[in-house]
């Protein structure tokens, strides 16, 4: 039974640790970026896990069977929740 917790802090892909899985909550606001993310399978509700975290913020994600590299600014603008957050 999980504790009911107050407001969960908003986390982005930058907060994801190596090996950790999470669900995408929201994509960045820019419409072109959003479309490019959706094309590659990064949609709201999709599950991703962090394969590599580089110093400086570049992130390598694993989706179903793909590896995607995201620059720091993009990773920082994609919000996520882990299963534990969703309670």
């Amino acid at each position, binding site marked *: 039974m999980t504790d009911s917790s107050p407001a969960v802090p908003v986390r982005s892909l930058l907060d994801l640790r190596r090996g950790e899985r999470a669900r995408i909550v929201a994509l960045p606001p820019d*419409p*072109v*970026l*959003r*479309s*490019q*993310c*959706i*094309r*590659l*399978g990064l*949609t709201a509700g999709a599950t991703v896990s962090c*394969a*590599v*975290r*580089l*110093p*400086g*913020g*570049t992130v*390598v994600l694993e*989706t*179903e*069977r*793909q*590896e*995607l*590299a*995201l*620059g*720091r*600014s*993009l990773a920082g603008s994609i919000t996520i929740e882990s299963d534990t957050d969703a309670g």
Partner: protein
Amino acid sequence: MLTHDSGLTPDDVTDVLPHTGHRHHDGAGAFLDRHHTRLVLVGNPNVGKSVFFNHLTGLYVDVSNFPGTTVEISRGSHGPWAVYDTPGIYGVSSFNDEERVARDVILEADIVLNVVDAVHLERDLFLTMQLVDMGKRVAVCLNMMDEARARGVEIDVAELERRLGVPVLPTEAVRGVGFDRLDAHIASATTGHAEPTLHRRLHDLLDRVGSQAEGLMVLEGDAVIAERHGVPPGEDREQLYVQRRNRVNRTLDRVVRVRETKRSLAARIGRLAVSPWAGLPMLLAVLYGLYVVIGTFIAGDVVNFTEGTIGNRLMEPAVKDGIARIAGAEITVERIVADAEGEDSTAATQSFVFPDGTDADPVGAARMESFRAGGLHDIHYTFRNPAVQIFFGEFGAFTMTVTYVLFLLLPLVIGFYAALAVLEDSGYLPRLATLVDRTLTGLGLNGRAIIPLILGFGCVTMATITTRLLGTDREKRIATTILQFAIPCSAQLAVIAALLAGAGFKAMLIYVAVILAVFVAIGTALDRVLPGKSSPLLLDLPPMRLPQLRNVAQKTWTRTLSFMKEATPWFFIGALAVSALQVSGLLDGFTNLLEPLTTGWLKLPREAGTAFVMGLVRRDFGAAGLYDLSLSPMQTVVALTVITLFVPCIASLMVMLKERGVREGMVIWLGSWVLAFGVGGLVALVIL
């Protein structure tokens, strides 16, 4: 049978850049063949599309820029089809130049051959479904089946066909598996099962937009296509994309099964290559490997042979001898001996004058021959007739330029493009981009810009062409500026290295520090000053694989050919210009003009000005001109700083004008004059 579903008229104008306004006619109609069925190859980057294209079209291939853009489209023919290759794209859209051009070519396609990577259907199927939604006649090649098998990926091809509604052919392109059925497969291309609600909406739009494909573009918000038909662009793109993505996911669930296999060696290497600890040493190893193969072997050994021996010692004298037989010339022969340390020095010099050519003076010619025959020698020809001098003289279009283009540039370009192809095909390149992404974002670029930056050390002209692959105009601008300002190309590097070796360690340190500082400063400053934002890195990392020699060779060949076609004319023109300058005495005049800057501000001998002007044609001339000037070590640093920051060669300027436009290009060009002399003078102030 020519069937295409767009309402175009035969003499439509071809201008497809979205920001140039009104185009009520089709974009690609006049660019594509009108007499044959048009077969267009479409696929994600790195799926092996080029192998299919090469198989279909053979050696006769024409590469040209899509009108109004700098994106290259290859075309060839195969049987009844005119075959077109498009750049690798993730989807059909107007997000960047490549996708815009691919969009226009696809709209004009009669048949689309969609090459798909069997190992990465989850990435590739989006484009496939979009093509199907567009109502095009599609045939899918499921490529790299051998790799899929090796990784335990099982695909129900029949079910995939059923769901897409188009024929799917499993292939292994590099080994040619499946190619025997390729022609029949392409001929059986058909329109597939578009998403039903979408299909109905597109049908309703038909009378206003002329084709289902264009209708889809309009619904997905493509402003250009919408304007062509005078309808407002749709606002549903995101929903349509999400819907399509969900459809892809459902199809994948039913069609693909992955047997859990142990993570392969390639996957482990791929992961290591991008990791913070192992990635850096691997990167350094790769860079070192590049340096050894290209910097030492090709730029050194190979070029010494091709340029030095074949060009300078064999070809040019032979040509000039021939011309000298009938044209008035003064021939100066320098006998060279190697002294105890292996250094060349001039033993004796003699000038022979032939007012009407050597044929007219056999006695004099014989005297010259015997002087030459004595041993190693350098020989200089100055022709009386200015026109002859321009074409065959020291900077002659038919002598020096041929040597430069064929014997110096060509080996280097081949080397760099081959290295690029190996990096691409091995899957390492995107990982390299990932590693350097953070560093490059500080300069307003992202990881992908590493490609032109590396190529810049080969040839800045070549690298400027490659800036096309960057995401936004802003990034192209920044990358081009850095390339034109601060990157010494390999032609220059050899001479710079030699001069620095002679000037000592401290000199080298100062030089490197100054150039690096300028490099960083330009990027940072432009990033602050230029409006807008650069695109962030969003790359898929393909699996690492062993590059196939045939594929590497084909890519290298196509790119080298395309580059040589584009750049060579400019080298000739530049050589003509400098020759003309020399012959008319304007070169000296120009050096005089620069003198106050050269001697007063830079504290260099006035002849350095000549070296700078020479650098306009060939960058290595700029550097080599400094050899003879006996500069002090610190003077060498100042001079090298100036020629490095100074404009690159004429070919580079021309390509830049083409890529960035005349106004922006000239601003960058003039800016580099200011920067070169400015920074050079500041350095001189400090160290001289």
